[in-house]
């Protein structure tokens, strides 16, 4: 297996017309996002298309997807520092950076999504240990701290800080911290496995919603995250072949489990409530298209082929394409889980579901505006990181 090593210098950052256009695009995204955010903060969530029937929508999808796609950080840290596959070290810094962007993205969107952003700190002070959402909040907080510790050596190494007073002392301290990398990787692995699966449990434990309430939910969430997170890191780094193979096999396992879930859990283990709910979704919403075409074919089958077959996986273009498809597949699966579960109306009495109409929701302008702003934030962080941080120079200090 040929492994492409990354020996890349930070990209030249001259203000070429292309770079100016790129920065202009990012700026435009940010302006759209900020305008939308100001609107939402001043007038409230009434501006969104969400309702009491469908209280979660696009923003929750972004939260879930961003955290799932940040899973490359813990997966690669574990591979390098716990399983000792040092040759993959060049990409760890980048993976942690992408993870950091993903988690901060989720937190930013979450602050937009809760009705009282001024009380974002309540889960840290007022504990409900029975709540899976409380557990997720704590895990994400702790994991963000772990990622910052993992990433601190990279930040202080940046050439940008060469002339900052006391930077030498800071670097010495940070490199001591770097020695703790295996411990941090182990902690990160434990915490990540917990909250990545708990995000699935957020849906899986809701017994009032028939198509959510199943034990396979956490498994599907964590497997899709482990399979696709590294693929996103790969797409950002542009190409490293071994990681796409890992993702490819991860996708195959995820795909198999999706079938297992469909057959064993949903079909053979079905209850009348699940039957009714799925019938309603299939006949009255584009559920089948979303599931088969977007999630399975686009999100699993095609990327797995591109990642595994020798014909395609030598060509970076196919690999990046595959990674983007897998990423889209994960985002769409999170969307499908969220909205299709909420589209099925609550019925108090069995056998009355057919009388009710499914809920309706499609994000409106202000919700898309926030989404565009969030993408602007991600692109800005990536651009600045690639320019100013030594993301690809890991090999140097160890040789």
């Amino acid at each position: 297996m040929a492994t492409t090593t990354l020996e890349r210098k930070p990209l030249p950052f001259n203000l070429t017309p292309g770079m100016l256009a790129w920065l202009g695009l990012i700026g435009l995204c940010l302006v759209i996002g900020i305008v939308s955010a100001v609107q939402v903060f001043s007038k409230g969530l009434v501006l969104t298309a969400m309702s009491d029937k469908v209280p979660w929508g696009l923003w929750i999808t972004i939260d879930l997807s961003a955290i799932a796609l940040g899973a490359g950080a813990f997966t690669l840290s574990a591979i390098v520092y716990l399983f000792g596959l040092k040759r993959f070290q060049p990409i760890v810094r980048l993976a942690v950076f992408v993870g950091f962007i993903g988690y901060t993205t989720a937190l930013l969107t979450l602050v937009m999504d809760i009705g009282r952003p001024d009380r974002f700190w309540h889960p840290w002070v007022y504990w409900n240990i029975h709540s899976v959402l409380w557990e997720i909040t704590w895990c994400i907080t702790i994991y963000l701290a772990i990622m910052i510790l993992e990433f601190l050596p990279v930040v202080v190494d940046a050439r940008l800080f060469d002339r900052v007073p006391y930077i030498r002392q800071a670097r010495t301290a940070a490199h001591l911290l770097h020695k703790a990398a295996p411990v941090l990787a182990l902690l990160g692995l434990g915490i990540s496995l917990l909250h990545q699966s708990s995000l699935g449990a957020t849906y899986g434990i809701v017994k009032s919603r028939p198509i959510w309430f199943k034990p396979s939910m956490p498994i599907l969430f964590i497997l899709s995250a482990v399979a696709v997170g590294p693929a996103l890191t790969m797409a950002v780094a542009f190409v490293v072949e071994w990681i796409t193979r890992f993702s490819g096999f991860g996708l195959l396992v995820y795909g198999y489990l999706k079938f297992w879930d469909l057959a064993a859990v949903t079909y053979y283990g079905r209850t009348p409530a699940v039957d009714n709910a799925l019938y309603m979704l299939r006949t009255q919403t584009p559920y089948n298209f979303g599931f088969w075409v977007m999630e399975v074919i686009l999100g699993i089958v095609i990327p797995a082929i591109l990642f595994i077959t020798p014909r395609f996986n030598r060509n970076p273009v196919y690999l990046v394409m595959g990674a983007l498809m897998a990423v889209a597949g994960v985002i769409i699966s999170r969307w499908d889980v969220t909205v299709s579960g909420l589209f099925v109306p609550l019925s108090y009495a069995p056998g009355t579901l057919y009388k009710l109409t499914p809920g309706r929701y499609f994000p409106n302008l202000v919700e898309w505006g926030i989404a565009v702003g969030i993408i602007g934030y991600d692109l800005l962080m990536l651009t600045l990181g690639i320019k100013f941080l030594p993301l690809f120079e890991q090999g140097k200090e160890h040789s």
Partner: protein
Amino acid sequence: MSQKKTKVVVELTRRDILKVAGAAVGSAVAAQFLTTGPLSPFASLKQAQLERASQGAIDREKYHWGMVIDLDRCIGCEYCLRACCATNDVRSDRPWNIVVKDQTSGGRSFFFSRPCLHCQDAPCVEVCPVKATYVREDGLVVMDYDRCIGCRYCEVACPYDARRFNWEARSDENTFIPTWGMAEVDRRPRGVIEKCTFCIHRIDQGLAKGLMPGVDLEATPACVNICPVKARTFGNLKDPNSQISRIIADNPVFVLREELGTEPSVYYIPPKEGL
């Protein structure tokens, strides 16, 4: 030169780390002391609250508030909905208390109404990340509007669609006031969840005055008082001699979605011919 500097540096860093750690622990202790200790600006407030609570000396463990709704009696007049909207100042397009037309399997129509069921094993209580909603000792599922962060997980998790979110700051005119009653509680702020409270303010104030909820009108939920056909009965499920306990003992009753194991405090008497 540089090596000497580095040596000094390492020691300084270590000491700095200790200093920072010390400062962090110290400020945490100080914060804890200042917010809960006798120096806290909230201490007097808290003390006053505690004294007031102990003066009333209501033993909530003695009660479990519940309701029985007789589906055969209900005529679908929606008086309960209106009285509720007036008393609790609820938006009429998103009522806490709903009334819908339903049909038995035999085809006869009846009216079905639903307050919050105040489940003893409530899914909404379980999922709240900040304990903004909880089951009180007297069985009421209460909301702490000052603690709710508006994540809407409880709204998603409630199997009975009993919860409503404040999507905007209220500026609507409540047309049910004064015809159907006067607002007895404040409007809820933007961004928090609300739901039926069983008119908790009436229960608490009534008990403090020595009244019995379910017997004395002043201490009984508005929807129960206004019902023209006495389809709703309110009272203490823990007292075997209360009217509600006797009705439950003498009639066939069921609860909604029993298979979920939520243990609602609201019982229904089905139509005579069955559901």
